[in-house]
């Protein structure tokens, strides 16, 4: 006897179709499971046997061969419990093989026959819809996540018996689904008092997609500022929403009450994270890392110099390309990773360099070593470097509330639209467009060029710092709706290269200045 059920599985960030075949032959009871199953799949036999017995359904007392096709791909996870069980029931004659056709089935079984939730149901439903499937059976726990998609029938099943009933054409009660419509409240920029410099920089970062580094003593509001960045970013487009939600669904991080959210994700991993945790990876089956989870959103790395050096260095390639490719012995896969990096760090190891109340207790050598922990190539990819200072308690009380996030977001959206129009592509921003195109679009005049020479000469900017400045200046001009980049835009952009300017005057200049004497 032979039966086949269609199912699917997750490989990296992709959904793959898996055909579950069951064949029975001979009279000696036993089971073979083939098609490169991993441990969780091989163990499913025990779960299925118990679940079928506890549901008081027949189990084939013959030699069973289970095949998971395509046979050359490794299968992992517990997605196939329910399809295998249904195929076995079909072999026993409980289900008409014809009713199994045209439906996708995923789900894990409990020993008592209940169906447990699996990760990635939204991604699977989305994939099924795009491939023209009409129907997908998912665990009832995943129903609210998968059923939000229109154009595909999603059925939630509670246990094995219910799924059998459904396939036999009996009505199956579906829980009433209620999704949260309004977006969760995002922290507002007006809650940050003062910090005009940092807030303006945040606006520029959001508008041009520039990475940003906040340097400031503990308690100066670096995290507060970073958390408010998603609130001033443009809302995700519908395609982006599906992309981001799929990723979060596969990672098991989706909010079932609101599976599709247009707010950009915000991730803030602790600095003890390993490089695998950050970019993704794993022994056999690569899993997405924090940079993929913050795809189309914000990745906040507080205490940047405390991160492990190898973890930071692997960020370089994804920062440039917007994706990361992970190769392991069994699988190699590509994860999307176009995120906006926000980093925070103290101005020195003790944290109080330049503070108006507490004196810094670090010797100059240690401060230099602290900054040396962040490699030049990584720093080069951070366009905006901004110093944040602590406010006095009086300032905290007396300063008026600043602009609200919505107002800033309006300007950001306008600036983004100008960029998308100019670069002729969605999500191409000034920060990531090819530098030669950018130079062209800046249309620098004689006066601007003279200004740049002056900056290079007096402030010791490198060629790279130069290009970064140009990108930022382009964004500032876009925010103001100016066609050409003027001296004013460039001059403001120079102010966002704190490290070059400050350390230029503190350490580097001591060389240059001394040699010039």
């Amino acid at each position, binding site marked *: 006897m032979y039966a086949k059920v269609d199912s699917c599985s997750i490989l990296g960030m992709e959904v793959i179709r898996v055909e579950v075949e069951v064949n029975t032959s001979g009279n000696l009871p036993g089971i073979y499971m083939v098609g490169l199953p991993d441990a969780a799949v091989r163990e499913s036999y025990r779960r299925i046997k118990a679940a079928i017995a506890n549901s008081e359904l027949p189990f084939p007392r013959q030699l069973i061969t289970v095949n998971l096709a395509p046979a050359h791909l490794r299968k992992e996870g517990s997605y196939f419990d329910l399809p295998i069980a249904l195929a076995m029931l079909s072999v026993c004659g409980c289900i008409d093989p014809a009713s199994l056709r045209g439906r996708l089935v995923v789900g894990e079984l409990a020993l008592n026959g209940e169906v447990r939730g699996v990760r990635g149901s939204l991604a699977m439903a989305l994939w099924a819809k795009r491939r023209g499937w009409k129907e997908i059976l998912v665990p009832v726990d995943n129903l609210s996540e998968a059923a939000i998609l229109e154009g595909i029938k999603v059925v939630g099943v509670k246990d094995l018996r219910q799924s059998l009933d459904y396939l036999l054409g009996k009505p199956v009660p579906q829980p009433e689904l209620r999704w949260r419509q309004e977006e969760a409240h995002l922290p507002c920029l007006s809650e940050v008092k003062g910090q005009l410099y940092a807030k303006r920089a945040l606006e520029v970062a959001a508008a041009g997609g520039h990475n940003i580094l906040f340097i*400031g*003593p503990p308690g100066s509001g670096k995290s507060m500022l970073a958390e408010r960045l998603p609130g001033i970013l443009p809302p995700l487009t519908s395609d982006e929403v599906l992309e981001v939600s799929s990723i979060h669904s596969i990672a098991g991080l989706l909010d079932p009450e609101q599976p599709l959210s247009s707010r950009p994700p915000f991730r803030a991993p602790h600095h003890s994270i390993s490089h695998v945790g950050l970019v993704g990876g794993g022994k056999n089956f690569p899993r997405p890392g924090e940079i993929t989870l913050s795809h189309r959103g914000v990745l906040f790395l507080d205490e940047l110099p405390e991160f492990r050096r190898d973890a930071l260095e692997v960020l370089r390639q994804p920062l440039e390309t917007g994706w990361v490719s992970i190769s392991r012995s069994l699988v190699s896969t590509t994860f999307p990773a176009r995120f906006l990096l926000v980093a925070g760090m103290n101005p020195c190891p003790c944290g109080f360099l330049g503070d108006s109340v507490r004196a810094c207790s670090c010797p100059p050598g240690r401060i230099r070593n602290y900054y040396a922990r962040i490699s030049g190539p990584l720093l080069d990819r951070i366009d905006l470097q901004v110093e944040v*200072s602590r406010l006095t308690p009086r300032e905290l009380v007396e300063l008026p509330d600043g602009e609200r996030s919505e107002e800033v977001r309006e300007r950001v959206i306008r600036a983004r639209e100008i960029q998308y129009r100019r670069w002729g592509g969605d999500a191409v921003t000034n920060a990531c467009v090819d530098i030669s195109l950018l130079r062209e679009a800046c249309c620098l005049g004689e006066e601007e060029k003279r200004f740049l020479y002056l*900056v290079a000469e007096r402030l010791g900017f490198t060629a790279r710092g130069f290009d970064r400045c140009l990108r930022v200046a382009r964004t500032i001009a876009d925010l103001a709706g100016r066609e050409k980049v003027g001296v004013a835009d460039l001059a403001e952009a120079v102010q966002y290269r704190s490290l070059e300017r400050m350390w230029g005057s503190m350490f580097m200049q001591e*060389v240059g200045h001394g040699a010039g004497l």
Partner: protein
Amino acid sequence: MERAYRAALACLPEMNPLSLPKLIRMAGGAEELWRTLRNGGEKAAALVGWEKERAWRTQCRETDPGLLLESLARAGIRVIIPGEECLPAALWSIYDPPAVLFCSGRETPSGRPWVAIVGARKATGYGKRCAEHLAGELGRCGVVVVSGAAYGIDAQAHRGCLQAGGFTVAVLGCGIDRIYPPEHAGLLEAIKDRGCLLSEYPPGADPLPWRFPHRNRLIAGLCQAVLVVEATEKSGALITAEYALEEGREVLAVPGLIDNPLTRGTHSLIQSGAKLVASVEDILEELPPFDLPLQVTGEPAGEDVEPALFPASGSRESVLLEILREGPATLDVLARLTGEPAGPLLETLTGLHLKGWICQEPGGKYVLAPRFGA
């Protein structure tokens, strides 16, 4: 030959310069001490202990003091022994005078007062401004400005003096051929070119932490007056001031804002009797009369940044400069006082930075540039 023996003794590995004068006295002269160490045995061990007796005996036998002196001279290093007139005589009468000093650079001018300017390494713009200005004025008057070539105040004092064409002396806590801190390579070169470097440590000696406080006694000993510009309560500059008091030198201090942690040391000095310095005259008053040279040695160093004309009053630039005159300010403060948005302010600040009017300090603070403050 005295010079050669003293130099050779100072070059012995792990020779402590503080105990060298005592050893020479006990042995009855530098040459005697050298002989004793070379012969080794009980007599040498009684002076320096068995461990060093063995190490130094071999070293002494392999070294010819005369040749050593010649090789030092070839490297441009002079050896100064007590009583020589190229340094102020008062140096040799301090509590623990050096047995020998290594020197490179120009000959020191004679008949001039020597003044030390010391202070914090992590100085604020205000401190650097004061140090540079006062050192420049002193240099112009022909005063020899002494400091320690460290970051911050020290470096700024040397620079100010050099830019005014004055003579400056850096007393180092390592061998004079060592470049420490490494960022000061250019500065040290300039000092050697138009002033001189001094050290009691042999060439090649490492910049070890305990050497710097000892070095400070020489800075105090060389000078008639010690000016402290900015210092915390535990600053090395205060050690120098203490040595100066013990040796009967004048101690002067520059006041500052009370909310700046770097003024706590200087203010406590003033409270305990140090003279408050508000202008160069306050320093000159404390010095013995001397002939003001009409032509200072060396030619003033060319300024690479021409002082720009003060911006027209009422312009945004001049408004910002007026605010910064009151003290360092962050962008928040500037925005509050001017009522302007961040973008245009940042743009103006870059302009001022490029013209050399202002510079930036850690903490996002803007300050007037050293040379325009005074």
